[in-house]
């Protein structure tokens, strides 16, 4: 992730290449093999993490999650952006800045 990336609905988050994921009962444990640090994602974080494919935009992801969860899109957007920013701060994402 580049420093201070802009993360908004146009971003296409992608999991860091050195991040190994274990999912257990809807929660994820992430091993960042670059730092050997472990991270625990709650159910919401795990759901969002599972959507990162480097192609789908945050807008796409939020729409899908909103439909799937039956939650208002605005609320899902707030939660999703919070999760993405936290993951980015922890160095767990590739550059997810909006394209040109």
């Amino acid at each position, binding site marked *: 992730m580049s420093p201070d990336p802009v993360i908004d609905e146009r971003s296409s988050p992608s999991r860091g290449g050195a991040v*190994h994921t*274990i999912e*257990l*009962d809807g*929660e*994820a*444990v992430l*091993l960042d*093999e670059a730092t*050997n640090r*472990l991270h*625990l*994602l709650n159910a919401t974080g795990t759901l969002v993490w599972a959507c990162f494919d480097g192609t789908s935009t945050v807008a796409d992801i939020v729409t899908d999650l909103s439909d799937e969860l039956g939650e208002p899109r605005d609320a899902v957007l707030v939660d999703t952006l919070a999760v993405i920013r936290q993951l980015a701060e922890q160095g767990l994402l590739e550059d997810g800045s909006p394209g040109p």
Partner: protein
Amino acid sequence: MSGALSETPRCDALGFAFVVTAENPRLTQYLGDLFAGLESPGRGTHRYAFHMSPDRPVASRCELTLDGRLLFDAAMAERLVSNLVRHVNRQAIEGCDAIVLHAGGIEHEEVGFILPAEMEAGKTTLTAGLVRAGLGYLTDEAVAVEPATLLIQPYPKPFSLDPGSWALFPELEPLPDLSSDEYKAHEWLVAPRAVGNIGRSCPVGVVAFPQYSPGAETELIPMARAEALIELTKNTFRFDARPREALDVLAEVVRSAECYRFTIGDLDSAVSIVMQLIGARAGTGRPQ
């Protein structure tokens, strides 16, 4: 003093094979009893030896060597027994190819119960209490999980009971016929078979993280598997040496296990609650 050497049977501590020789046959007998759970016939072995060297200063007259290399010295062999047990343990853990957890372990009907925790959390005391209650002893210190099979490899080392536990197990005070009590000045090293039976290799069925909290209500609190996985990594020897492999193995362990935090107010209630859990799992009441 010099004389004929006596030797313990060959033992295998998670792949570290060894015998112990000494000039005092009573010491050898005691050590043989301590390590009896690890006896394993075979070829090739390391050799610990207690030597008395009358020409050395009194304070270092007895030497403990491994394959001829000096490890420790003291005024008498009895003071070196704890050093020996700890050295064997370190060799076992450092040389083992399995994923090794800092945990106590017991077995019942081919199901393993592991108690991962740091030092002073009550692992050994609880493990000894459960073995005394009839469960099979796997280890009080190092649960080795084979990556390929996810089976626990029994490592029934001597129990190391701290003074705080002595009153709970008065019947386990070591009483070998040695010339000094130095061997039990700081801890009791207890032969596993003096406590109960040795357990068999088995998969992990229950993971419970014990925390001794005097006066607290003893309880097993269910724990999410992902959280348990994180906690297991904190209690894995040399996790950083191969984190991904260890994480994958431990994930498979917790995937098929019940996971708990285990607050322990006192030993009797802790043993009782584990026995109830076993009974509930088996649906047949308390184990025989």
